């Protein structure tokens, strides 16, 4: 929020945001306007609390302030609401909105309801991400804009359009029914995964000032897991995030350049986080109902368990990718499986698999295919072929750190070729 607010108050604010928003939405039955009002209340709190001290009932304070903004907003439309505002203004926020006895249970459901709403399938992924970070994560528009490197006005528009779409879709403000609950939960997990991936893939170099999207994704997924502890895919996604994020300190070099898994200094990996993630996925897999997130988490756990890259249990990784390929239509899974195949049966086997995949239109011309081909050609000793493929891949990627990585690989081989 602002630097005037200490870290504890800030995290309290962000934890309270969803339950405050849910309370205001229920009272006024207007999600879009309530969302704006709650943002204003959060900003007001970040300015006033450091000066005046933390109120006795922080969520009551926020609900009160947000509700007052709402009544300002609808005053012209309703004289009844105007009276409500006057009576509300007479008592202190804490008296007016003491937490009900079942506050904990209410909070539990509110976060879920909001997540389902913000990740509604009628929204584009980029809209759902932005709205989730603001409405559930409690981030300001400016912070989200900074994280995605777009102007604040662009992000404000994106959020506003998302809220209009939700309004038009007439989604009721409650949990989805059992009929479409599974698919709606799938959409929620996908949005959380994208937020994590955005932070993980781009938390490099010139972007040091970004809010930590990966940490935010983990926080939100943890909150979801607390509420749906019996769902194996929610647990799988959380484990996947933990097991991947644990490698972050080893993933970039001193100049922010990418370091691939085989070259990482494994002493820098966060062992405590790996232990958490491994315990979680080990508890979850025996529950049955294995899904893509659990499998990816299991693969990450196998990587994290190896003390050295050379000691990686590739046969197990290949087996996991083979199961994953059967239940997932993602072509990137096939690419990763080709690498595992090469590690178990040799580069030639991997290259043969790639030749088959190359005929798949969704992968043709994708830089990742060329990057994997370059890697396998290098393994097979075809250095010139590897340089050519790294160069093509570097030319095709639109990610600056990936391009720098791929060019550096080509340069490294060119250097060893002439030496």
């Amino acid at each position: 929020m602002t630097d005037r607010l200490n870290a504890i108050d800030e995290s309290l604010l962000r934890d309270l945001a969803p339950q405050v928003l849910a309370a205001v939405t229920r009272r006024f039955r207007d999600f879009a306007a309530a969302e704006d009002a709650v943002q204003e209340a959060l900003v007001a709190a970040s300015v006033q609390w450091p000066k005046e001290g933390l109120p006795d009932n922080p969520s009551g304070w926020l609900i009160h302030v947000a509700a007052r903004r709402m009544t300002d907003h609808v005053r012209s439309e309703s004289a009844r609401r105007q009276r409500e505002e006057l009576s509300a203004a007479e008592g202190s926020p804490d008296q007016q909105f003491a937490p009900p006895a079942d506050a904990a249970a209410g909070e539990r459901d509110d976060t879920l309801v909001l997540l389902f709403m913000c990740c509604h399938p009628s929204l584009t992924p980029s809209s759902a991400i932005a709205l989730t970070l603001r409405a559930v994560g409690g981030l300001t528009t400016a912070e989200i804009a900074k994280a995605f490197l777009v102007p604040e006005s662009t992000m404000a528009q994106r959020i506003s359009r998302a809220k209009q779409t939700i309004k038009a879709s007439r989604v009721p403000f409650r949990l989805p029914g059992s009929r479409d609950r599974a698919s709606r939960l799938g959409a929620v997990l996908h949005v959380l995964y994208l937020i994590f991936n955005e932070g993980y893939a781009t938390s490099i170099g010139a972007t040091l000032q970004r809010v930590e999207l990966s940490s935010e994704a983990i926080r939100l997924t943890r909150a979801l897991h607390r509420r749906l502890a019996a769902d194996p895919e929610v647990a799988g996604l959380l484990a996947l995030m933990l097991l991947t994020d644990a490698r972050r300190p080893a993933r970039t070099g001193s100049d922010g350049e990418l370091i691939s898994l085989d070259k990482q200094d494994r002493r820098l990996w966060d062992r405590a986080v790996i232990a958490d993630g491994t315990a979680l996925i080990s508890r979850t897999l025996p529950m049955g109902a294995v899904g893509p997130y659990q499998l990816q988490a299991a693969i990450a756990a196998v990587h994290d368990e190896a003390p050295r890259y050379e000691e990686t249990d590739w046969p197990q990784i290949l087996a996991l990718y083979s199961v994953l390929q059967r239940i997932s239509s993602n072509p990137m899974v096939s690419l990763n499986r080709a690498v595992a195949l090469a590690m178990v049966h040799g580069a030639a086997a991997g290259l043969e698999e790639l030749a088959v995949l190359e005929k798949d239109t969704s992968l043709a011309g994708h830089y990742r295919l060329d990057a994997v081909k370059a890697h396998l050609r290098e393994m097979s000793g075809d250095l010139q072929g590897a340089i050519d493929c790294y160069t093509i891949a570097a030319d095709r990627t639109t990610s600056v750190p990936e391009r720098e990585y791929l060019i550096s690989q080509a340069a490294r081989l060119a250097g060893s070729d002439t030496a």
Partner: protein
Amino acid sequence: MLMMNAPKGASGDWGVMKWPAEDLKAHIGFMKRFTKALSDAGELVAAEGLASPGQARQVRAQPNGAPPITDGPFAETKEFLAGYWIVDVDSQARAFEIAAGASAAPGPGGKPLNMPIEVREVMSAPPVEA
């Protein structure tokens, strides 16, 4: 706005593909530190690196409805825009100083590249009429 123009490689790619690995690393590190220093000094408004010219497309609306999109790279251009910085500074002299710093980014053998950096002023809103 400081526009960095790079010479086009033989196959329409980046010339940097042929650099020794260490020199490439030094160049990339220089660019990152350069942009971060501008950001830390509060002078940076925006900075972007652009995808390679091989990924470029040219769009020109046409009256006869023919396909208006042409694939790059474009033979007629010898140089292309590789990236840009927009900086907010007090004087033109400071903008030139920054441009000179970017121009001297290290190339092969650690020697300054002395790339051409085109400096253009971003136009402002009209003055407020009283």
